[in-house]
């Protein structure tokens, strides 16, 4: 048993002060301490990307970060991507284009897609596929995920009103 550390993390705009074991993974902190279970654990080894969240606006795999490493940071999870009651264009894209089946990889896929579009608002199919290579989906064969990101890019381009709330850029 190790000494606990005090951390302060702002998650989806809300400040949390917690005492955590130094070995506690960020993903377990989000899921088990803050009850934000939309972020999933798929592999424990950074391959599958089901745990992708935004740390200070950049996509990270929350299963390979310690909660203490997020001390003083801002985290956005799938629950905080769009204001309550509305959908982010990427979420809409996934729904419209049937970009999910079992849905388990979906939160991580959506957060990774956010990262792609943040740096490249008009990605080609190849760029989208490359951008998603750290995320595994076993259901869709990725085709409709690619379409979902393309649809989101178009919508975000068409409507500048639909700015993501969580953007720290």
């Amino acid at each position, binding site marked *: *048993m190790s000494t606990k550390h005090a951390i302060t993390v702002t998650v989806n705009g809300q400040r949390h002060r917690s005492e955590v*074991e130094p*070995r*506690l993974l960020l993903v377990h902190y989000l*899921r088990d301490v803050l*009850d*934000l*279970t*939309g*972020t*999933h*654990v*798929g*592999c*424990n*080894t950074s*391959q*599958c990307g*089901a745990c992708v969240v935004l740390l200070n606006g950049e996509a990270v795999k929350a299963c390979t970060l310690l909660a203490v490493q997020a001390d003083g940071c801002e985290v956005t*999870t*799938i*629950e905080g991507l*769009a204001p309550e009651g509305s*959908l982010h264009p990427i*979420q809409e894209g*996934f*729904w*419209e284009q*049937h970009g*999910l*089946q*079992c*849905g*388990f*990889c*979906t*939160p991580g896929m*959506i957060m990774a897609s956010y990262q792609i579009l943040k740096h490249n608002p008009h990605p080609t*199919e*190849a760029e*989208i*596929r*490359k951008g*998603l*290579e750290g*995320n*595994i*989906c*076993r*259901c*869709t*064969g*990725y*085709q*409709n*995920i*690619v379409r979902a990101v393309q649809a989101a890019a178009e919508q975000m381009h068409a409507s500048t009103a639909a700015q993501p709330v969580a953007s720290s850029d």
Partner: protein
Amino acid sequence: MGIAAMLGTPIKRREDPRLITGQATYVDDLKLLGLLHMVVLRSPYGHARILHIDTTEARQYPGVVAVYTAQDLQGKVGNVAVAVPLGYISEGMGCRGPLASGKVRFYGDPVAVVLAEDPYSARDAIDLIDIDYEPLPAAVDVEQAMQDDAPILYEEFGTNIAYGMHPPSKEIDRIFAETQAAGGVIVKTRLINQRVAPVSMETRGVVADYRKADQSLTIWSSSQIPHLLRNILAVQIGLPQHKVRVIVPEVGGGFGSKLNVYPEEMLAAFASMQTGHPVKWIEDRSENLAVTVHGRDQIDYVEAAATPEGKITGLKVYGISDLGAYSQLFTDVIMIAFGFPVSCGAYDIPAVHLSADIVFTNKAPTDAYRGAGRPEATYAIERAIDLVAHRLGKDPAAVRFLNFIRPEQFPYKSAAGATYDTGNYHAALQKAMDLIDYPQLRLQQAQQRAEGRLVGLGISSYIEICGFGPKGTAPVGLYESARIRVEQSGTVMVYTGASPHGQGEETTFAQIVADEFSIPVEQVLILHGDTDSTPEGRGTYGSRTTAVGGAAVYNAVQKLKEKMKLIASHLLEASPEDILLADGKFSVAGSPQKAIPFSDVATTANLSNTLAPGIEPGLEITVFFEPDACVFPFGTHICAVEIDKTTGEPHITRFVAVDDCGRQLNPMIVQGQIHGGIAQGIGQAMYEGVVYNEDGQLLTATLMDYALPTAPELPFFELAHTVTPTPVNPLGVKGIGEAGTIGSTPAVVAAIADALGVPHIDMPLTSEKLWRLIQQR
């Protein structure tokens, strides 16, 4: 457009809002008061004797509540369930309790469990259990495991061969000899269908909550089979069935791997009963790769005889199925019961000879994985057809056209045993060839080859048997059920025994009901996955949910519709035969002004105390559907590849799939199923493979080592379809869940072999393997 135009429409899925916002509840998202966390200690050896277990230190670790070994389960928990026909394999062979006793037989075999107040402490304590093992030589290679001097898993039986099927071959030998005498050819090959891992993105997981006060157990499990899980688990842990409730929450994929009652479900239930606390177990990915059932792992010796024109006169298949260390639910029957009946594929082959051995080895148990037996059978026949074409110097498409069962031959009784419902194999192949512009692509490839490029084309014309099904074939009836209640508001509640894990049945089933009741889809609610509220069902697997479960829903609606027409006829003062239902209204034929809304009839049925004599109040019914026969989807996949000469890396340049699953209820969902199926089929062809070393150590225990296809590796799939409905169910639908996996693999292998100008290469066709072949050219 009226309200009733839902079927055949690609409406968006109703399950998605909760999934895209992170609000869905998977098993690991559940929190219960007093929850204990279970962690399993597993064998680090492929084969070893357990000499001594000391759990003292683990029990004393802070936060630990209990530690159990096989000894603690004695007389309290039954064996892992196996659903094989009686007498099929020797009683006791392949059997196990949930924790190993005496011996461990594969890497990951569960040996002990720790229950602790938090998962980190449980994990710490696992390391404090001290076990003395005596490592034993392992039987890893299946053909070596069949030899007399092989290490034996079950010593008392003296062999690793669980069952052999070796019928006389005189007749097929005569046919082969005659074909050869008449100037025909015999092709022979040995095909390895390598062991693969299903890898649903959500691993398995279970929460068990036993209440001592009323001796009742609630299980939340990531499962494809809530009712089977309840029925089997109740027996295993000695509770009456009505005291066990299974709830299957959101399930993050299964692909057959969650079609089992696993040791951990039994252990969590046992632990909860012992401690009086709810118990959670969540599989980690390494456990998932080590102990959740694997798929395939079959070797086929295939021989085909053909006339000089390429007409197949006979087929011989000798299959060896690698069972792994233990029998799970369907381990022993995957090859013989699910694969063998479709050994002849889409072809009119007059004679077939099937023989088999099924063999235990020191590896994880194999069982159902998307396709289960049918991908292996399809791979064997499709490769055989290509070998005939290769030998005769004919185009593989032409050999297929020559041998296809013709549309007028249906229903068609195959020499391998199955009776095919409907099909039009010529049309699917032709459409795929048109879509990819086959003649042009062949010409183009000839030019590219002349430039020294490694390009190839592969065709696979598959069929599938699914929608299990049918009466009298399985140890228990494989039916589905639907309970439908039309509430007083007109809302329709549908309780289905089928339980999905990504298939979108909340959408397709609602489409069936909305269409048949002529009401908006929003007025229909589909509920599933809770054995306390849903009628008995058999689960989602074998591409059966729509063909069997959907048919039950359809039939239930018809019965309720009759009753509603009767009530409407009284309200409208007309004869029941004259009542029509359209656009959300019951009306009188010929007098459209005499009409009453669907919801008013629902209100009357539920509230009125003046219903006509003989009409019971309420609108609720439970219907079961057990099909008389299986359904046989089919199609053709064509793959074009180019191999990078310097690295050996294969690139799929085109992938065309023409699939026929009969009538499509939601084409968007159908296409999604095909995409995912193809991706898994390509995965097996090019990337995936479970690898053990000679000691039975698993070398692919993380996703760093087990290669799943990612987005940049997969091509854009070009889909088209034909529609050949089935008479087997009232919807005319066949299954589509597994078709992509069955059809795609042989096409990819054929294309890569074609690119290298060789008859066959064993999977997975990794760039390393291809690079080596290129160096040898």
